[in-house]
């Protein structure tokens, strides 16, 4: 026993190393597999607050770009207003239209923390459960799809961005309606993604738009990017296309959180079907 104690004190550095290394690896593995250790992330109070303050400073640096993109979006939305269409029928009546029910709602949020150069990138936004945000909502911005919410706290939420190895989004070619799956490519380029599992019969064109499908969290037809290379990987049973992302993740300032009002109903129905099997 004495000898053992002497041995341990003589090589204390090694044993201390083992203890600390194992405990940090446990934290690391646990977080990855179960996503449990949500207390250490940027949605927590201290880090979230710090990021919010620093972001106020950063915000001044990109006021011009934000203004431009907002003005651009305003112009696009204005052109969709009823008042900007010319009415070519004389008869005019007012209908309370019950055909259309609101399915998607958008909540505006500010990005307070962002990363683009890591293997798995996340953003933090400044709204949370207090504003009715829950896990699993989609996030878009004026130029396209941004990501999916993975953690929420009362005031902040963490978004797993498109630039993440685990993100998969159901996507299709805008003109040909061929459905595939979108993910980020392996060489960590923040401007490119890969559209996989497009059937071999499809005839995509260079520059064709890639948009979300109705199977995803997002409303159908939200832009993801444009096809920039038709033959990314040869030899599979399906086509792989390289997509230039439409969102510039390095300049992201304002985003919208999408709420599908019928999402809960759909999930419940599908869960019931799984239970029956």
């Amino acid at each position: 026993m004495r000898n053992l104690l002497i041995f341990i004190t003589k090589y204390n550095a090694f044993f201390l190393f083992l203890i600390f290394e194992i405990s940090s690896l446990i934290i690391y593995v646990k977080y990855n597999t179960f996503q449990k250790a949500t207390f250490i992330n940027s949605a927590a109070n201290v880090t979230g607050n710090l990021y919010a303050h620093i972001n106020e400073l950063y915000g001044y640096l990109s006021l011009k770009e934000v203004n431009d993109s907002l003005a651009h979006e305003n112009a696009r939305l204005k052109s969709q207003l009823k008042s900007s269409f010319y009415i070519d029928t004389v008869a005019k009546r007012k209908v309370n239209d019950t055909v259309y029910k609101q399915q998607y709602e958008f909540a505006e949020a500010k990005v307070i923390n962002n990363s683009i150069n890591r293997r798995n990138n996340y953003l933090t936004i400044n709204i949370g459960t207090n504003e009715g945000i829950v896990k699993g909502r989609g996030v878009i911005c004026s130029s396209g799809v941004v990501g999916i919410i993975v953690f929420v706290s009362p005031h902040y939420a963490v978004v797993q961005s498109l630039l993440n190895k685990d993100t998969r989004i159901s996507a299709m070619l805008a003109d040909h309606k061929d459905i595939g799956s979108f993910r980020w490519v392996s060489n960590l380029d923040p401007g490119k993604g890969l559209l996989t599992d497009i059937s071999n019969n499809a005839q995509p064109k260079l520059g064709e738009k890639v948009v979300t499908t109705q199977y995803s969290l997002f409303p159908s037809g939200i832009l993801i990017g444009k096809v920039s290379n038709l033959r990314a990987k040869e030899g599979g049973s399906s086509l792989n296309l390289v997509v230039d992302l439409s969102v510039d993740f390095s300049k992201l300032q304002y985003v919208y959180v999408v709420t599908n009002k019928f999402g809960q109903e759909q999930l419940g129905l599908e869960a019931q079907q799984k239970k029956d099997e």
Partner: protein
Amino acid sequence: MSRVILINLIRFILLVFIQVFLLKNIALYNLSTPYFYILFILLLPFEIPNLLLFLFAFILGLTIDAFYDTPGLHAASCVLLAFVRILFISITVQKEGFDNEPEPTVSIMGFRWFFTYALVLTLFHHFFLFNLEVFRFSEIRYTLTRVILSSIFTVFLMLITGLLFYRSKERK
């Protein structure tokens, strides 16, 4: 003694701030990402007890993890770094010299020793960090490129900082 604690506390806060709010946004061609904060562990005094060294490394790692959303990743790398530091110092520095050489800085230990020290420790830390993050061998060449280029960037920043705070009167 209290002066040493104060200096290290300020160094801790300053390095975490620089890492999280400045260097986190920097990546050269998506290959070279500096992890400059490990300078804190490198510059801890020679005579620090092993337990404290590991504890500080663990806390520093967790602090960075909290900002990077990767619990445990940086903590594990920093603890490994602390272990390599103990080995490296026990091999290269004589115990008797501790009285007039309190901290392993450039001005006290000389440029050549500090350069080797920083390079070896940074390579160990970055190699472990990047491989733990990627966690597969199929991308090993890409990962190694990132390790080497990032290490060069980090060591470069460390040497600049070392020379910036160079005090020639401490040199014997």
